[in-house]
């Protein structure tokens, strides 16, 4: 069971009128796997989730959610969703709202209290949602996404509006959902969180899937240059540049770029220069560089 994908997308296309939003997306997520879905604003992340949930119809392609068709009763039972902008009825209390969701999901109302405690809303639960802060509403959204035993969890920008501590809590909850065997798909713009907290990264660019792999693999495939920053001894910057090439940054520093496989070779040449170099700083491509590379932002 563990190796059969809980969520599969095959050549998924979506068109709104004439605009082609998604152009042939294929993606699978296994139980327990956490996949980050990245992409620029308007890339189609939310649209992809709505297709998986059956909220909007496919133009072409095929999606299965725990083996069922999107929007079918079986698929709805198997999936949970945390929308981008969570909207609850402001006249209901948090407890009432969650109780409604629990009953719709076929869960016992008794699971509501522990869930409210779990997301830190135990005290506010009796108050009307209209009086809540954005972060509190976001937590309630998370609580409803925890209802039942989801096989597929779709979280659209789950950390938006959360303070740093809450973000941390949120990812702990996400790990828990995944550990219980759900396939988790997280749309996000928070690169650093995604780096630490997901198993795989998928990047959408203008409706196409341009990357779908682990971070290490993506780094290797991109082959982005490593940046070396050398600080010269006293007035040696001039000489350093003539010997190694690169760019003068300020009075005393030189910046070099090299491919990952050339790294050791470069370092050897630098140490051979001996006293000319006072310091070496090495920066591997950052996550943002990597994201820019794949999402095509660096070519603008």
């Amino acid at each position: 069971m563990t190796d059969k994908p809980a969520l599969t997308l095959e050549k998924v296309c979506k068109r709104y009128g004439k605009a082609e939003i998604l152009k042939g997306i294929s993606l699978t997520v296994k139980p327990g796997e956490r996949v980050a879905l990245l992409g620029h604003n308007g890339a189609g992340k939310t649209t992809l989730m709505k297709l998986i949930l059956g909220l909007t119809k496919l133009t072409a392609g095929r999606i299965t959610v725990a083996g069922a068709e999107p929007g079918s009763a079986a698929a709805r039972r198997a999936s949970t969703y945390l929308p981008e902008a969570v909207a609850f009825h402001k006249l209901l209390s948090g407890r009432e709202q969650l109780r409604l969701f629990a009953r719709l999901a076929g869960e016992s109302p008794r699971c509501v209290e522990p869930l409210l405690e779990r997301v830190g809303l135990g005290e506010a639960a009796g108050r009307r949602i209209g009086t809540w802060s954005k972060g509190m509403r976001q937590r309630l959204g998370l609580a409803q996404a925890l209802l039942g035993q989801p096989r597929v969890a779709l979280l659209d920008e789950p950390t938006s509006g959360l303070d740093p501590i809450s973000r941390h809590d949120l990812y702990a909850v996400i790990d828990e959902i995944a550990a219980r065997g759900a396939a988790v798909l997280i749309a996000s713009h928070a690169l650093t969180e995604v780096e630490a907290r997901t198993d795989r990264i998928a990047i959408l660019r203008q409706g196409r899937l341009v990357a779908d792999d682990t971070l290490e693999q993506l780094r290797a495939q991109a082959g982005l240059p490593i940046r070396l920053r050398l600080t010269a001894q006293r007035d040696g910057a001039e000489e350093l540049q003539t010997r190694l090439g690169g760019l003068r940054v300020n009075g005393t520093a030189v910046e070099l770029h090299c491919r990952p496989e050339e790294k050791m070779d470069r370092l050897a040449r630098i140490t051979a220069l001996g006293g000319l170099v006072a310091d070496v700083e090495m920066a591997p491509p950052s996550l943002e560089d990597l994201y820019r590379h794949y999402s095509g932002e660096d070519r603008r």
Partner: protein
Amino acid sequence: MMSRILAVSASEFAIARRNRWVFMATGIMTLFALALTFAGAAPTGSLGVDLLTVSVASMTTLSVYLTPLLALLMAFDAIAGEAERGGLALLMTYPVSRGELLLGKFAAQLGVLAFAVMVGFGAAGATAALAGGAGAESLAALARLIGTSILLGGAFLALGYAVSAVGGSSTGAAGLAAGLWLVFVVLYDLGLLGAVVFDDGGTFTRTVFPWLLTVNPADAFRLWNVAAAEGVALATGMTGAASALPAWAAPAALILWPLLALGLARIAFGRIEP
């Protein structure tokens, strides 16, 4: 299925209580019903019927206008508002069907309306009975008025959901609901009246016109109340059309309307992409 419908209507009812719809609807109904009953108290003697009969007759006229209005006001935002807030999309990811959502809302709002009608007309009826007497027949007329008002409210609640789904936005739906009220409650009758005057007692007036009245839930409501009670018919002056129809016509129309309108609303709701 039943438990999901109940869950939806329980939360819908909590909302109606908090946004004061229960209070407002009941207050308006009671106020108008009492005012009409007292206004009608003066000329009773000339008709030779008890005060409750006169009161029911004037409340019938009141209900034709007020019940559809309250129902549409409660219903127009039910789907459009939820879709606009984004709450509908989340609801639709749960294993609850659109029909169940619709029925849940319908049950709650019909409950609110029924409460308002029973309290409002009940209070006015009791006042009239205490002040001017009541008979078995006028009590039956009061019960009929309350029952048919609830059916009328049901029809317009469901029509309200249909326009809420078609309207696109809350404001669009509000406009459509206002138009709907105007057409069914005012313009339809004006049109028929014009046709009857033009026809001047011809075949149209005698055969087609009564049936056209049953097509409109507001007129079917009026016909049912009029046809069933002679006293009420006398007081509203609507005997002609009532006697031209078989006795089942108006009740059948009024009972079918809520079901038909719910079907319409379900179809319109089905076309919405949350």
